[in-house]
């Protein structure tokens, strides 16, 4: 399979970014929108073509999906240890190409309507293209270091786009927070990469992930060494997962994601729902054989528990939030937790690898319906100019298309058949049930919560009280409704893709089948959540308020996101800044700087004192000179001999 054309998939957005970035002032806003959409359309078309070629024509040899790599050595350290630049084509990277280009294209189209009349229109499209380039590069990376480079690039684009409304203080703070938190996590990632480089002697994914023919262990021999009872490679994997957790907003590095909602809504849909935040899942999936085989999957267990806890934690917070974008942000976090959980409970071989498949499946479907939810929320915000549920209600009469598409997305995320979320969520629950019942029940409970808070949102926006609007809200323009309709279509059909035929842990296709009792339980839980939401929020009533009052303390905690922002502030400000940094800064000022400045000051003082010697009186100089001569003469006459 000739894969060199795939190189153009990331390079076209890069070219668009450079074009729009450099000729920012010259290009008319309307034109820049078209350029952005055009560039992404070409990329998307190439991705679809690549997927068709890979999955249906050339990818499968003897039932096993092959990996195609094209790369050049960029930096050479030793024979095995070198940093390459290239593209790697295997099932998950092709799948991610589809996800990224599809959602990105939809968001580009949507932004043409949403951002209309904004001052930084061209800049916005330039940043979107930069992000698309980085994300596609990340997806196609052939080795840990390349993925790290693009990892940071998506971080930068995310920073730029969250802080897009740079005149708003809160947006600037949110951008900084997102960047610093993820950067902190990436520090762990970098250390993990370096440990892998040192002990395993290679960064290359294929070498790292190579599994022996029986499928029972890794081929790679690393210099074994242990630290605190775990092998160093496990530590490396945990540190790499820390990087992934930071990007994917897993507990306890999740604090940046809700604040990231300060960015424009299309950005939230693209970066903070569909693509960048699943990079952590993608990273774990990319290194899955390592996670699974190294030390009996210790690191993978951690992934599972972190994922499960995050999904529960976020779902509880999502119940109480009133900013619709924040509800969606916590929902994203919860769903990503789901994906992590699925990866964590997966095995490697054949059908036992259903968790891996389910995770990727859920990543795919979630990208579609969560992007749809965000874009729908953006459409609502566009109409009512507010982010808060209290300013909404009864919008179904004004915005029929948004209403229908939002409902489809909500049904999809709630796991109602036949929408996409049902199929992927079902697979996740099956995988969890087979491996770890505790995680299964957590997953099931979260599924119920998800259905509840999503329909609370839906009823709150489109039904509920009849709000009187100053300006009657109206349906969004076609450029915004088209992406909604397209993604709604995807949310309906994506579930019918036989994912197990395409993406599996050991790259051998197997036939997936629906587990009916399992599915019935999951759907039942989801329906209970929906019905509860129906009772609470369909019509305006005080049930919800009475209920939240009954929970009192717990409700208050959840509403304040369990005070995690405050805890972080306390740790960073009160402990690190005041107790550690401030004394060190004081020491630096007083002693280190003090010494240096003291030397300078003393020199000045002494100079001040002796400058009188240069009096400008010729005779003084002569006097000094003569006395000097006399002294030297005396020394030579009486002492030297």
């Amino acid at each position, binding site marked *: 399979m000739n894969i060199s054309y795939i190189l153009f998939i990331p390079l076209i957005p890069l070219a668009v970014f450079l074009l729009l970035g450099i000729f920012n002032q010259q290009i008319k806003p309307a034109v820049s929108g078209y350029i952005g959409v055009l560039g992404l359309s070409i990329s998307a078309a190439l991705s679809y073509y690549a997927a068709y070629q890979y999955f249906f024509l050339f990818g499968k040899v003897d039932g096993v999906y092959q990996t195609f790599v094209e790369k050049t050595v960029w930096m050479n350290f030793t024979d095995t240890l070198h940093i390459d630049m290239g593209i790697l084509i295997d099932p998950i990277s092709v799948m991610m190409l589809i996800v990224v280009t599809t959602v990105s294209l939809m968001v580009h189209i949507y932004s043409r309507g949403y951002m209309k009349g904004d001052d930084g229109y061209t800049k916005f499209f330039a940043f979107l293209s930069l992000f698309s380039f980085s994300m596609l590069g990340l997806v196609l990376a052939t080795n840990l270091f390349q993925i790290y480079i693009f990892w940071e690039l998506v971080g930068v684009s995310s920073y730029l786009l969250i802080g897009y409304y740079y005149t708003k203080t809160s947006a600037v703070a949110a951008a900084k927070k997102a960047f610093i938190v993820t950067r902190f996590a990436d520090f762990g990632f970098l250390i993990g990469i370096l440990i892998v480089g040192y002990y395993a002697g290679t960064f290359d994914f294929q070498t790292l992930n190579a599994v022996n023919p029986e499928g029972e262990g890794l081929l790679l021999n690393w210099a074994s060494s242990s630290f605190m009872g775990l092998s160093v490679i496990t530590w490396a994997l945990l540190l790499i997962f820390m990087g992934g957790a930071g990007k994917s907003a897993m507990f306890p590095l999740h604090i940046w994601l809700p604040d990231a909602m300060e960015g424009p809504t299309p950005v939230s849909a693209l970066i903070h729902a569909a693509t960048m935040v699943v990079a952590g899942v993608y990273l774990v999936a990319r290194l899955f054989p390592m996670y699974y085989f190294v030390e009996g999957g210790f690191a993978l267990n951690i992934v599972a528990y972190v994922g499960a806890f995050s999904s529960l934690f976020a779902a509880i917070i999502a119940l109480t939030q009133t900013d619709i974008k924040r509800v969606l942000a916590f929902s994203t976090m919860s769903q990503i937790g789901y994906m992590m959980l699925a990866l964590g409970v997966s095995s490697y071989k054949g059908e036992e690898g259903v968790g891996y498949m389910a995770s990727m499946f859920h990543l795919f479907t979630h990208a579609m319906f969560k992007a749809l939810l965000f874009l729908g929320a953006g459409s609502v915000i566009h109409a009512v100019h507010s982010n808060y549920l209290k300013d909404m209600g009864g919008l179904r009469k004004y915005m029929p298309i948004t209403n229908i598409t939002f409902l489809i997305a909500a049904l999809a995320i709630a796991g109602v058949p036949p929408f996409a979320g049902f199929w992927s969520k079902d697979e996740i629950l099956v995988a969890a049930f087979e491996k770890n019942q505790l995680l299964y029940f957590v997953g099931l409970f979260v599924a119920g919560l998800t259905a509840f808070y999503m329909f609370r949102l839906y009823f709150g926006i489109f039904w509920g009280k009849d709000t009187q609007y100053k300006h009657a809200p109206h349906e969004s323009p076609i450029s915004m409704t088209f992406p909604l309709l397209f993604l709604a279509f995807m949310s309906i059909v994506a579930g019918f893709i036989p994912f197990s035929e395409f993406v599996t842990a050991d790259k051998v296709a197997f036939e997936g089948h629906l587990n009916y009792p399992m599915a019935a339980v999951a759907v039942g839980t989801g329906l209970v959540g929906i019905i509860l939401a129906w009772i609470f929020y369909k019509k305006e009533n005080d049930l919800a308020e009475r209920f939240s009052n009954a929970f009192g303390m717990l409700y208050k905690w959840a509403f304040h996101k369990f005070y995690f922002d405050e805890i972080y502030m306390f740790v960073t400000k009160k402990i690190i800044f005041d107790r550690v940094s401030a004394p060190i800064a004081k020491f630096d000022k007083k002693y280190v700087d003090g010494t240096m400045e003291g030397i300078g000051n003393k020199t000045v003082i002494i100079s001040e004192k002796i*400058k009188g010697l*240069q*009096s*400008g*009186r*010729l*005779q003084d100089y*002569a*006097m000094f000179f*003569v006395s000097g001569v006399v002294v030297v003469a005396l020394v030579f006459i009486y002492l030297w001999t």
Partner: protein
Amino acid sequence: MIAGISIYEIFTLTSILFFIGIYGFITRKNLISILISLELILNASAINFVVINKYLYPDVLQGVFFSIFIIAVAAAETALAVAIIINLYRQISSVEVKDTEIMKY
């Protein structure tokens, strides 16, 4: 060789002359006086050249030439110094040393 006078006596004379010049150079308050003192120093060294030549190497004349050279240079130097002093006088209407202390730090 000069009959009846030893080299030490002449050295004593030139030393006295030299230190009178140094003393004058350091203590005089008038620029012209300083210039005169300078001439004394130069003369003392010129005499030394001649005398040393005469007493130690009577068959060559370098020392004598050197003293003539010194006199010539001293003349040029004096002309220069007087020119400077006159210019200074035009500027500050004074030839006192204490009035020329502006060239410091």
